[in-house]
């Protein structure tokens, strides 16, 4: 149980160090900030990158007898995975100023595969459904409010697209005015986003005070 106690106290201390930033930028905050960055980088490197990805997906597949457990240890080694392993190692050439071009092979491979996937999936899963969503019947029979809402939707999508593609050169009365309507829509959308952000940050703060008041000080249940 002592570990839990120490963890809670360390946590409370760090939390208070972070809160001192509200008074002003000070050594306590800088300390907590840098400790946090160091600890998280160490965590990502060892636990995540190595133990959760490289070991099971690369090492355990190439040398199952050493790195895999259970029935997976008897699987046949997949030596083909040495290729991505080597490509990954090539990335480390970035540290050298003369040989950094060697990493380009890896970069080229990653870019090829991921852009290839991106082209088809972004068209199929985002572009087409969103365009489809924006094409709605403008007149809903007997439902004036429904018709109005659909009109709002269509006008909004079209005018915002105008804004994106002609915003910096908003010349001429048509482009300029349509883009202006687009800005109104964006402002409503950003307002909603702001409201949502406020909501989220307050929820986080509630979480923190819950920790301090209940887990640490036991003032509330």
């Amino acid at each position, binding site marked *: 149980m002592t570990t839990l106690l120490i963890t809670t106290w360390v946590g409370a201390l760090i939390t208070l160090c972070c809160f001192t930033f509200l008074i002003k930028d000070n050594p306590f905050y800088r300390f907590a900030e840098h400790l946090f960055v160091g600890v998280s980088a160490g965590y990502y490197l060892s636990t995540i990158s190595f133990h959760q990805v490289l070991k099971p*997906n690369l090492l355990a597949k190439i040398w199952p007898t050493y790195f895999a457990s*259970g029935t*997976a240890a008897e699987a046949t080694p997949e030596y083909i995975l040495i290729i991505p392993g080597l490509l990954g190692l090539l990335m480390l050439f970035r540290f050298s100023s003369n040989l950094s071009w060697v990493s380009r092979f890896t970069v080229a491979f990653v870019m090829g595969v991921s852009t290839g996937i991106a082209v088809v999936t972004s068209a199929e899963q985002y572009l087409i459904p969103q365009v489809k969503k924006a094409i709605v019947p403008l007149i809903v029979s007997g439902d004036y409010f429904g018709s109005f809402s659909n009109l709002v939707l269509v006008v909004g999508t079209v005018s915002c697209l105008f804004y994106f593609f002609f915003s910096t050169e908003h010349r001429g009365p048509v482009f300029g005015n349509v883009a202006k309507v687009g800005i109104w829509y964006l402002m409503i959308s950003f307002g*909603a986003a702001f409201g*949502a952000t406020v909501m989220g940050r307050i*929820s986080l703060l509630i979480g923190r005070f819950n920790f301090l008041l209940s887990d640490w000080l036991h003032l*509330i249940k």
Partner: protein
Amino acid sequence: MNIFIKLKNLDRRWVFLFVALSVIIPLLFPFALPVVPTKAVANLHKFIENAEALPEGTRCFLSFDFDPASEPELKPSAVAILVHMFRRNLKPICGANWPVGGEMAEVALVEAANAYMSTYEDMKAQGKLAPGCKPIIERGVDYVNLGYKTGAIIHVKALCNDFMYPYPQDRDGNSTAEMAIFRNPDGRRFAMSDVGLIISFTAGTGGIETFISMAGEHKRPMAAGCTSVNIPRFTTYLQSGQLIGMTGGLPGAAEYETLIERPGKGCAGMTPQSIAHLVIMLFIIFGNLAYIAEQRNEAKKKG
């Protein structure tokens, strides 16, 4: 009007103090405010409740795509949904597209499993459990935590074909091939097509959107638990029919908790949340009154 100008020049630490008090006081002296479920939350609840869509024993994939920074917002809804799944005798399989998602899933699973097991007798007496529910649920049989894998969209693509390949082990290093939860009656390898519902608890990018991108391949119904910040963006997916339901932020969690009649962190947070919103709105109004007052003063000077 000059009082507003004075207010504007107030040290901002007073603003901070106000915000802190608006959260602390309602936490110390709680009073309940009504919680009314919105459509998106109710739809998700209805889908999980529906025994035809998700028969008992159906495995569901829950992706924990967040980190401690969003835990207060997303964990309450994850716990509520997990408890609901256990009560319906559904089997959650947890994974993660975010590096520390595995840890987040672990905490939520432990809390939900304990909540289910400690209320088992009561719920059974009230007839609120599915017929096949057991008093004690086990890791590897009724639920599993697979942990994190890199790759996001590429990882999800790999899952569509076969779960065991990217996940030879669960988060604790136990071999997945032997686990009862992944066994198919016909001996097929477990793949995304065996999953009844995909839910991603998403903070920002890399969550439900990666599953949406791969929807052409897995064709499973999807839902999201998202942080408040993402509600505007994810609403479009609800509307385009790509998501069947969504819990948004802490309020979403409170609504889900109300629907399963198990008030938790979400409901408890609603009072401070409401008060703090009011305080922030007041700040905006005061700030603008001060601005107007300043403008008037300047106009007078010029005039």
